[in-house]
């Protein structure tokens, strides 16, 4: 089990004809993700089926056509943020995924891999998703993996350290969640689901939403949050854990201990503005809420063993 993504979850790939979309669709199919169809956004691409190493994937010119023929509850978006030449915009693809409804056949979760979507556009889309009661993950996120079952996004799923287990992992950064998953695997802990938030300042699904999902997942016995400097999400999460009396043990790791104020490392969200974004503030707030924080990579195994046995 795990959350959001299972072996039989039908997935639609938006932007399957693009460079990134095509490359990762092939890998997802190899891993065993149940991709039912792809959607093309290039005006000059007229293929209606693409062969991925023997598996023929139907391609449609819009999502509605696809949903008429196949079921899909999760959509993963590889469409670039804005290519005015082709009138191709990620926001249009995401909006389409949120609103399309063919006889009750709709997308429930939209995973947005695309980077560089302007903040204001994201705000509109997140608002729309909330009104429609749907989930958006990202933008600028590496995707979700339920080890041994399926994955969507750009995660290097074929790596051996993604192993079924009972740790739920949520991360703001992509490479860092691979890095820590490897560390967990080394210490003998597999993962139930490794999910990501996305590096942007405005994102659809936050730590709290994920904790809420992990709370009712039978397979997950503990949750690890991988945060970074900037914003105040970690503080809000600490408050949530305190208030809700969260039953499962929660651990945290915060990147950027030595980052300087005002410097942006590449994630739009990871920039310290004022006190609340600093490493110290995040770590103390989390520890006050009873969340053990890994100070560095070496302490991970020891802390996990002490708390979980």
């Amino acid at each position, binding site marked *: 089990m795990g959350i959001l993504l299972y072996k039989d979850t039908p997935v639609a790939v938006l932007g399957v004809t693009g460079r*990134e979309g095509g*490359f*990762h669709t092939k890998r997802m199919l190899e891993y065993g993700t149940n991709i039912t169809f792809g959607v093309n956004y290039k005006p000059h691409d007229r293929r209606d089926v693409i062969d991925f190493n023997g598996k023929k994937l139907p391609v449609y010119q819009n999502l509605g056509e696809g949903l008429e023929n196949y079921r899909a509850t999760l959509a993963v978006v590889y469409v670039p943020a*804005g290519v*005015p030449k082709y*009138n191709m915009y990620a*926001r249009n693809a995401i909006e389409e995924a949120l609103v399309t409804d063919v006889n009750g056949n709709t997308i429930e979760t939209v995973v947005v891999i695309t980077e*560089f*979507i*302007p*903040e*204001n*556009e*994201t*705000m*509109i889309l*997140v*608002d729309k998703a909330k009104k429609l009661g749907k989930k958006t993950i990202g933008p600028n996120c590496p995707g979700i993996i339920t080890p041994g079952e399926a994955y969507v996004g*750009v995660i*290097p799923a*074929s*790596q051996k350290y993604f192993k079924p287990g009972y740790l739920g992992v949520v991360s703001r*950064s*992509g*490479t*860092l*969640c*691979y*890095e820590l998953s*490897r560390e967990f695997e080394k210490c003998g802990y597999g993962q139930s689901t490794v999910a990501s938030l996305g*590096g942007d*300042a*405005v*994102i*659809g699904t936050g730590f709290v939403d994920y904790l809420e999902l992990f709370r009712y997942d039978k397979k997950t016995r503990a949750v690890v949050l991988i945060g*970074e*400097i900037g*914003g105040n*999400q970690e503080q*809000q999460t600490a408050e949530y854990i305190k208030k809700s009396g969260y039953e499962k043990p929660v651990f945290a790791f915060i*990147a*950027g*201990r*030595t980052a*300087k*104020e*005002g*410097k*942006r*490392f*590449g*994630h*739009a*969200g*990871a*920039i310290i*503005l004022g006190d609340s974004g600093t490493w110290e503030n995040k770590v103390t707030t989390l520890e006050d809420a009873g969340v053990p924080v890994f100070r*560095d*990579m*070496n302490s991970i195994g020891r802390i996990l063993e002490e708390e979980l046995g």
Partner: protein
Amino acid sequence: MVNFAEYFSKEWMSQPFSISDTAKMSEGFRNWTDYLIKHDIIPPDLYLQGLPVPNGRLIDSLFLEEYLQDVLIATRELNSEVAIKIQVLKKGRGRAGGIKIVRYDGKPFDINRYCSQVSVAARELHEEYEGPIYQVYVEELIKGAKEFYLSKVTDTSSKKPMIVWGPGGMEVEELEGKLQKIIIDDITNPKESLRKMRGVDGIDIESVRKLALEMYHRSWIFDLSQFEANPLMIAGDVITFADLKLIMSGDAVYRHPEIIERWNKTWKYQPTIAEKREARAKEMGFSYVVLDPTGEIFPDRPGIGCAANGAGLGMVTCDELYAHELNPSNFCDLRGGSTKDKIMQAIWHIASEPGIDGILINVHGGILRVDEVAKAYLAVKNSFDNLPCGLRIIGTNEEIAYAMLKAEGVRAHRDIGPAIEDLKRQIEMRKV
């Protein structure tokens, strides 16, 4: 001239959007505006109106004396009292700028004397600020008005726009607690939420509400993540933006070529060496941050150039370097999917930073194939004159990479700790 896209978060001095300018500019991005109009986020006619900003003009400081007289004559209604503003453009949140008010002290009015008075003040301002200053802005002085703070920002926790309003005139940090924060719950109908704004100091709140609405709509049109007026001057029923700060979200810059063109034409700006290096890296297609090349915090520690794939891993790499008493001088994000040539350029770029004692390459290949990293390193290593290098390589195509490195006799590690230790040893050996 620097590309505006590099300096997305630079602050604008209060530059008026005149009616004709906004009308002209709006033609360029019809798509997005149409999208917003279609979704009832902005009323279709709103982006045609001007904002209440003081009269003024930007003058090149090289030709200050020549132009000043023209400006002052043209703005004779400035009433022999002007405010002079300068701004040192900076990245991030760093605020730097100055304002000086010049009042003509003699009678009768003599334009020459007044000019020299203004230019003396401008020179004084130049001396107060260390950064290079290329232009000054001379504008009319707003008199007899109270100062307030009004801004539109994005509230990342509720994922909604937010209007902040209250007494002003100081740095916003000092105002914390006195300001009203109004979250716009319904993006398409902000008026409902704006009704929650309360009057301060007996100000007619209705006119401020109107202005806040105007700022709200404009921040959609121009993709502003922040639209801040501090101070906002209110005298009776006359409202003026005495100083504005607009931050356009960097990802939306492509939608506003007109503004960039205008910005590049208007502003004279010489980037620092660090900014030039960062801009060069962006041209090559990877993000690059200059951290601490001069070793301000730890002058005795060796400076290390870092390359990693991903922002999170980069931050952890820097954290680990500090823990091992090394000083990260810069950081380069090798993006997923980079090939040998691109990675070669990146390694060159981090190694060519002045004052580098060694480099650390920390890759955890996902989309990035690490054999490309190994190839790139082997191709450039001989030109480095034995520059110490720590290699930590893991991920996609790991076996191929290790075989290649082994054939050339290069050590690489699967964990970050040993890689840094290795690098440290090499630096020590080089010192001896």
